[in-house]
């Protein structure tokens, strides 16, 4: 291999390995303050070091190319040197492009995930502890399970989870004991004994004024073991007492409950899902064991979701983030939201304004579900709480509006209005014209696409400039290892402000091209601009190397 080529490759690999090690060490000093889970610490350091390394990689490449040319022996022929370093240079350009395009975004996302997951783990564990202390073991178990999904082996979590499991087990035992007490497993008693027990219970009920129970128990006693006159007498007496009685409070409550159930059902049958939901929700809370109430509560909720949605789902979609603003022009109407967030069940909106069909509406909450904008939000916890749209003209406002293709457009809008760094390259390439159509300011998309396309070109430029500088400023004697070790990081650090200025200056031609050209043409024009920049840098590097010292 050409000596110059091998020197460049050796310097580039050596400097980059040292830089990664330094970045890892730097992260190591930061890990204490990052408040991370122990199980994430090493991966956080490795990924964080990768992010740090990526920030320095261009400067390191320039310095490596310069050092390779500086220490090369032989005549200072720029063309021969440039040719020698360009072939491995293309390899580094490809490797660094992959680093910037694929590895760096992944590493950034992982670092953010480790930090966020560590915070969430702490919150879940704290909530599990709190619920456990309050005696709400089921809720505590749910929080602990959430935390276990993040880190199964955390010792403190294992301890808390064990305590919760023990408590749940104790609770289950107590319930089983209560149930077994209700259903004794003793061997079946003889009929006369059973009948006598019913008779005694019937007598007790009669004494307590519970005539229905007395009548029922006495009849059971007679059915099990017939022929006892005192039992027949008790049946007659309790029947007479029952006939002379007003309905009991319990009977009145039952009748009232049944009446309310019928009313609720009536609302359900009349398709007033919200009112039905409110009533069945109250009934189900009153008598959790009533299967009718539970079934119709679920059916009412399902019916409601055709017109509105539950606020809790919106809260879930927004999570801890605030969503992103949305502005859509749809079929002669305009929909705006201060914040929008996606989930599997639709696109949830907050602080919504809608101009449609010549009328304007405002709503605190809304959901785009297919072709429908739902403007009715209901709290699942307390269905009495509902949020409806308000018409600007004070008139009635609908609970939903048909907006063709609204959900798909909103999803695309949110996808393209995400921070451009988070978008895959293919989305960027295909999304430029969509962004324009959706009225998204495409400057950020163009800038990020341009940034990503620039990586290989920038690497080639840096290698050429480095080779030129290295040749021009060759020393009389080959620098020692100490000098290289001391000055290389200084050189890399000093060149970064120049990079920042170059990046800042490149924004102007980028902005000019992005405004003047549509998506597809812009990409071609930008690549042509980058090609011209490579040609210019070749010319400048050759000019720099022209005054190289001769041996």
């Amino acid at each position, binding site marked *: 291999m050409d000596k110059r080529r091998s020197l460049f490759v050796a310097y580039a690999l050596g400097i980059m390995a040292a830089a990664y090690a330094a970045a890892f060490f730097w992260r190591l000093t930061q890990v204490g303050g990052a408040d991370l889970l122990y199980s994430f610490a090493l991966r956080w350091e490795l990924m964080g070091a990768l992010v740090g390394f990526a920030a320095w990689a261009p400067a390191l490449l320039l310095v490596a190319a*310069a050092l390779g040319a500086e220490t090369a022996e032989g005549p200072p022929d720029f063309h021969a040197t440039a040719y020698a370093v360009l072939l491995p240079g293309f390899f580094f350009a490809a490797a660094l492009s992959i680093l910037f395009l694929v590895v760096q975004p992944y590493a950034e996302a992982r670092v953010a995930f480790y930090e966020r997951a560590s915070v969430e783990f702490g919150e879940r564990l704290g909530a599990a502890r709190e619920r456990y202390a309050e005696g709400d073991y089921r809720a505590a178990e749910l929080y602990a399970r959430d935390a276990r999904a993040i880190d199964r082996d955390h010792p403190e979590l294992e301890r808390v989870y064990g305590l919760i499991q023990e408590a749940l087990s104790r609770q289950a035992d107590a319930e089983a004991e209560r149930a077994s007490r209700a259903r004794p497993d003793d061997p079946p008693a003889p009929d006369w004994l059973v009948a006598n027990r019913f008779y005694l219970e019937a007598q007790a009920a009669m004494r307590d004024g519970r005539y229905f129970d007395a009548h029922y128990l006495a009849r059971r006693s007679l059915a099990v073991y017939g022929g006892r006159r005192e039992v027949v007498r008790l049946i007659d007496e309790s029947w007479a007492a029952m006939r002379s009685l007003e309905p009991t409070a319990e009977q009145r409550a039952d009748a009232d409950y049944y009446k309310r159930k019928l009313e609720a059902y009536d609302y359900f049958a009349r398709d007033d899902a919200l009112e039905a939901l409110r009533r069945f929700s109250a009934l189900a809370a009153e008598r959790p064991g009533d299967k009718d109430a539970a079934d119709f509560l679920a059916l009412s909720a399902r019916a409601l979701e055709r017109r509105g949605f539950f606020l809790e789902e919106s809260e879930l979609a927004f999570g801890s983030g605030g969503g992103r603003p949305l502005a859509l022009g749809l079929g002669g109407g305009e929909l705006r939201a201060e914040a929008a967030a996606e989930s599997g069940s639709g696109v949830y909106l907050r602080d919504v304004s809608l101009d449609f069909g010549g009328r304007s509406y405002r709503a605190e909450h809304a959901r785009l579900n297919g072709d429908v904008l739902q403007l009715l939000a209901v709290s699942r916890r307390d269905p009495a709480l509902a949020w409806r749209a308000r018409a600007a003209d004070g008139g009635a406002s609908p609970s939903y509006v048909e907006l063709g293709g609204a959900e798909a457009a909103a999803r695309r809008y949110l996808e393209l209005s995400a921070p451009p760094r988070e978008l895959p390259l293919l989305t960027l390439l295909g999304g430029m014209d969509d962004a324009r159509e959706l009225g998204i300011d495409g400057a950020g998309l163009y800038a990020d696409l341009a940034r990503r396309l620039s990586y290989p070109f920038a690497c080639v430029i840096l290698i050429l400039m480095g080779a030129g500088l290295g040749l021009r400023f060759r020393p009389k004697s080959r620098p020692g290892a100490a000098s290289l070790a001391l000055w290389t990081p200084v050189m890399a650090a000093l060149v970064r402000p120049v990079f920042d*200025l170059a990046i800042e200056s490149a924004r102007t031609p980028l902005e000019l091209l992005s405004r003047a050209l549509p998506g597809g043409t812009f990409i071609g024009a930008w690549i042509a601009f980058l090609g011209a920049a490579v040609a210019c840098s070749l010319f400048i590097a050759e000019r720099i190397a022209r005054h190289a010292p001769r041996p």
Partner: protein
Amino acid sequence: MKRVAALLGKAIGLYVAASLALALFVGLRAYLDAWPMSLAMATLLAGYTLPLAAWTPTALVLYYAMNRLMPNRPLGYLLLLACGVVLGAWPLALARFGVLRLDTAAAAALWDSGRSLSVWYLGLAELPPIQAALAVSGVLWLLASGWGLTRLVGSRPLVGAFIAPGAVFGFWRLAELYAGGALSPAFSFVGLNLAPAMQAAALCWLTGLGFVGLDFLVAAKPGAEAGRG
């Protein structure tokens, strides 16, 4: 003499090229940001209101040319200062005589410290001539003092090639700090009651002297080897 003339010619050529590039850049920014002035006016303004920004890359390239052509350090610094004062202060002089009207609009296209230092520079036209002259020459002296840094490590000229551009950015930051009065309390502390421009001038001159001293004490001699960086 021939070398000095060559360097002067190079300085003027580079300065004109840098001014044109800067004017083109500002013109584009004016178009893109829809400035409330015509494109031609923005370009023209940039051509004469940003001499410090045009002189800085000129000086940077001159450092290396002087390393080859100017073995005499005092003369080299004098030449850098003289060129800097002529090319960097001419708009102030013309504005003083009422020939030019200075406007800070073009400075808006520059980056942070570039913008604030350029605005400060244009504000010097309002000050008494002595103050303005000392202040602007102080900044230009500071920029000239970077020459020695290109030869700071005699055995490794490449290190100087990396130090000098970074140092020039540092000089702009320093000058911005000095012009912004960040060290005014130090003057009060030692009992000196100077105008802000004079404070900036004094600090720039002193810092420049420090770097020039570093050159004489540590750096390699310029032009020691023909053709060497």
